[in-house]
């Protein structure tokens, strides 16, 4: 299943609800374009809600890293929300779990920007 994204605003924070797979090809490109688009609109407080993402390959991991550093380099912040067990485990074994700011509930993710 290809990656589908929808965005919404909560207290000045952009929540990107992701659904599907973040893998080499279309999935990675969709995410990259979405983050670029948000930054171009000045939306620099971003939460990627990965609740419905149950598969990420190494390219997808790279895309998450790229999104994180791109947002950070532009003075913004990107947090990850609601990791599935598979994605959580992947970030653990790649030692990225402590790099990303990972949240388990939306309210605390939004609050963490203040």
């Amino acid at each position, binding site marked *: 299943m290809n990656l589908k994204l929808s965005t919404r605003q909560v207290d000045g924070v952009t929540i990107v609800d992701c659904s599907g797979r973040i*893998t*080499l*090809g279309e999935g990675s490109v969709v995410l990259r374009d979405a983050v670029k688009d948000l930054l171009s609109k000045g939306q620099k407080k971003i939460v990627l809600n990965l609740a419905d993402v149950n598969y990420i*390959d*190494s*390219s997808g*991991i*790279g*895309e998450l*890293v*790229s999104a*994180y*550093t791109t947002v950070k380099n532009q003075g913004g912040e990107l947090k990850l929300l609601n990791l599935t067990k*598979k994605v959580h485990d*992947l970030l653990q*074994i*790649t*030692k*990225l779990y402590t*790099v990303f700011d990972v949240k388990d509930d939306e309210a605390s993710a939004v609050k963490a920007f203040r």
Partner: protein
Amino acid sequence: MAGDRFSYKLDSTLETVDSAEQTASRIASESGFGEDEVMQIAMAVREAAVNAVLHGNAYDPEKKVELEFERTSEDLVITIRDQGKGMDPAKIPDPLAPENLLKTSGRGIFLIRSFMDDVQIKPSQAGTEIKLFKHVHGAPAGGKEASQ
């Protein structure tokens, strides 16, 4: 799996990557692996196929990716061969090193090694062969030496 071993050749495209992953998932399921192991095997094969298509054959339409599945008494063995210049596994940086953590690539081989019981990488001027081993349930662990 219909027999103990079968192989086929695929074009150097992204569709090949998806196809390799799906075939691996199906065969791992048929071989009796659990859900988590099936996911691990399928992802390892996907990563190896990505390497073959992108880094090995570099999307060259003249070059093929060969995929081979073999079920032995001890292992499910999956071999992926490309026709590229040959990858030197010793030159792959450690993706867990602090200076590499924020790199956007270079985690494929690491994930393969994490998910499989043994991995053998044989580069040559005719291409790279990567052999992935997953012990079937009840088979003794160990006994094979990885190339790196």
